[in-house]
């Protein structure tokens, strides 16, 4: 064997000193790596937020898409408008009307999923060091976007009705007194990801009015609004105030693979969003816009949403009833009226991130609550999703999860440990299993 005489000194990345400061949080993490097992059939994954699209009429959709390509292929496979196709934007207005929103198609900007909409909004408003207010807890994908723009996220205390208005007023006053610039409040008022809670109409009014009077912009993210499981949708915050920036999505009401969402924004904001969109992607996916427009025109999409609601209702009920049956004392959870998620609070002292390897051993996956905070909170919380596994698998998964909690309690009791010492890092963005 020939050994080279020279010493080889490497960090395995010759560009390691060239990266922008904003990449500092972009590191491999053991927690994310543990999710690699979530797609194995032995694992019941209560972690992922993937919508269940198995009930879509795939044969009918395939036929109408084929017809679309045959008749309009030259158009649907060409570059398009940076703002989104005009006819499609009008169709989006029909969707938003179901939640009380009236608007002009010129104020809609189509994006590659609402995630890109959030990215564009953050890009045009935020400089490093600015503050964004967010619920406690808040969507992990949004936190990743905010942190990539080197923004400081300040969580506002929330309760079973969403953001606490009194806490909101106090937080705004405190942050402004510190001389920091609050750029906007980011909120998911319907069936929040991850908490599952919904802001009642009166709460929405109070939050919007509080922000309006304090000069704080509101960004309303509403991917789950039409997936109400117990009652009709509550009017959107945007229907209460035209200055609210509204993010919408077809990922949950149709299918996420098209990557189509939108931003509804006041005129001046929209102008900047279009320019930002053009510099980011030239134009949002044209084929996807026509495909969804075709679906909205030719299929009973409202009836399909009803099918989705019935399916998710059964799964939610399976999760809630099993939680009631099997969870150890000291555990509590939210009761979502729609959407995909239940937010569990574990007995005092437990740390859900520390339990994750035990979950893999027990063949159940869940998302530790700390992923949904930018400041290290959430150790006692877990997000469980009921959207993807069928009801019988959900029951098995929750039973396994309860066993994991019981075993962790047992081990901690043995050693007299009251909290698990886990080092936390800020989230670096959404993984497919976390969205």
């Amino acid at each position, binding site marked *: *064997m*020939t050994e080279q005489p020279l010493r080889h000194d490497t*960090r395995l990345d010759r560009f390691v000193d060239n990266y922008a400061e904003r990449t500092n949080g972009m*590191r491999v993490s*053991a927690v994310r790596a543990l999710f690699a097992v979530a797609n194995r059939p032995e694992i019941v994954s209560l972690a992922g937020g993937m919508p269940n699209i198995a009930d879509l009429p795939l044969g009918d959709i395939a036929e109408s898409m084929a017809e679309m390509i045959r008749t309009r292929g030259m158009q649907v496979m060409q570059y398009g408008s940076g703002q989104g196709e005009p006819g499609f934007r009008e169709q989006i207005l029909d969707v938003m009307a179901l939640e009380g929103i009236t608007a002009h198609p010129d104020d809609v900007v189509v994006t590659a999923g609402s995630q890109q909409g959030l990215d564009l909004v953050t890009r045009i408003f935020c400089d490093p060091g600015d503050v964004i207010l967010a619920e406690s807890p808040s969507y992990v994908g949004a936190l990743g976007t905010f942190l990539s723009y080197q923004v400081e996220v300040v969580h506002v205390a929330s309760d079973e009705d969403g953001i606490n208005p009194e806490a909101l007023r106090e937080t705004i006053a405190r942050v402004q007194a510190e001389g920091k610039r609050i750029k906007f409040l980011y909120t998911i008022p319907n069936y929040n990801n991850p908490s599952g809670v919904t802001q009642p109409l009166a709460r929405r009014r109070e939050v919007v009015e509080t922000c309006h009077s304090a000069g704080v912009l509101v960004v309303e993210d509403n991917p789950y609004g039409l997936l109400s499981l117990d009652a009709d949708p509550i009017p959107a915050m945007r229907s209460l105030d035209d200055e609210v920036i509204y993010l919408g999505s077809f990922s949950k009401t149709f299918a996420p693979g098209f990557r189509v969402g939108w931003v509804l924004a006041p005129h001046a904001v929209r102008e900047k969003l279009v320019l930002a969109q053009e510099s980011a992607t030239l134009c949002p996916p044209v084929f996807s816009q026509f495909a969804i427009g075709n679906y909205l025109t030719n299929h009973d999409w409202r009836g399909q949403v009803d099918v989705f609601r019935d399916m998710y209702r059964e799964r939610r009920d399976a999760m809630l009833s099993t939680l009631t049956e099997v969870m150890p004392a000291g555990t509590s959870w939210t009761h979502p009226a729609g959407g995909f998620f239940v937010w569990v609070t574990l007995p005092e002292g437990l740390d859900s991130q520390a339990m994750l390897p035990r979950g893999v051993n027990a063949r159940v996956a869940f998302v530790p609550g700390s992923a949904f905070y930018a400041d290290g909170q959430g150790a006692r919380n877990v997000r469980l999703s009921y959207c993807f596994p069928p009801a019988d698998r959900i029951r098995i998964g929750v039973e396994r999860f309860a066993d994991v909690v019981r075993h962790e309690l047992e081990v901690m009791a*043995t050693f*007299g*440990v009251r909290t698990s010492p886990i080092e936390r890092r800020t989230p670096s963005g959404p993984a497919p299993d976390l969205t």
Partner: protein
Amino acid sequence: MTVIVIAGGLSHERDVSLRSGRRVAQALRAAGRTVVETDVNADLVELIRGTEAPVVVPMLHGGLGEDGALREVLEVLDVPFVGPTGASSRLTFDKSIATSVVRAAGLAAPRQIALPHDIFRELGAPTLMESIGQQLGYPLIVKPSRSGSALGVTKVDDPASLPGALVAAYAYGAVAVIEQFLAGSEVAVTVLDEGDGPVALPPVGIRPESGVYDYESRYTAGATRFVTPAELPDDELAAARELAVAAHKALGLRHLSRVDMMVTPEGPMFLEGNVAPGMTETSLAPLAFEAAGRDLGEVFSSLVDLVAVS
């Protein structure tokens, strides 16, 4: 011959395994081999049986891949495979057993105690922890007995931190190892045996920027400096290579292994052996191959040829 690279599996290290497997498969294809990649699943045995002249490369990390179970199955099926046997893998994968075997062979290794959670519960954790602390002294290393990639590993500086470290280790498995902490230079030595006896490749010195060679430091490119051969005097480098080959033999390993060690003022001391060394872009064995003037595809080609004819 068709090479079947098995990667993935249902362990805490699935992600690392998938990356190792893809890289080895690509290297073998670049070397002109016919390669099939597969996960561990219900179709695996049929796949192997239905393949003409199969040679298996198990790139599974943790769990069934390194604990010997899958290798025992391959032995039952009489399918040639690269890497240590089932029996020696089982022995090596369990850190408490491997260290005992290495010490019994007269090689240097840290003192350690391996205990299941139940014994703490039955005998009373406070007294037991106090005795262990007195016996081994602080600082200590606490780790799961059967895991890899530094998952569940904690350095414990004082008695107050020991309970939390044990809770973290027991999240990965039923037995935790409490080990004397060794200060020194961390070094990994890859051992390669292509039929002429085990040879130690140049030791790789590990210098994590954070000071701790944890999961992030292992798999984030740029987070760790790797120096090959390690920045050590020639006699210490030679001692490290000798220890690696001796441990490889004592554990009954074959073909390819990696021995991790700490070079202390008293000389190199064994930390653990690896029967399926990582082959990712940030793994240690490929760096050793490179330093030895070898290519990943060439090494694995040589090994699959070796097992195909033996």
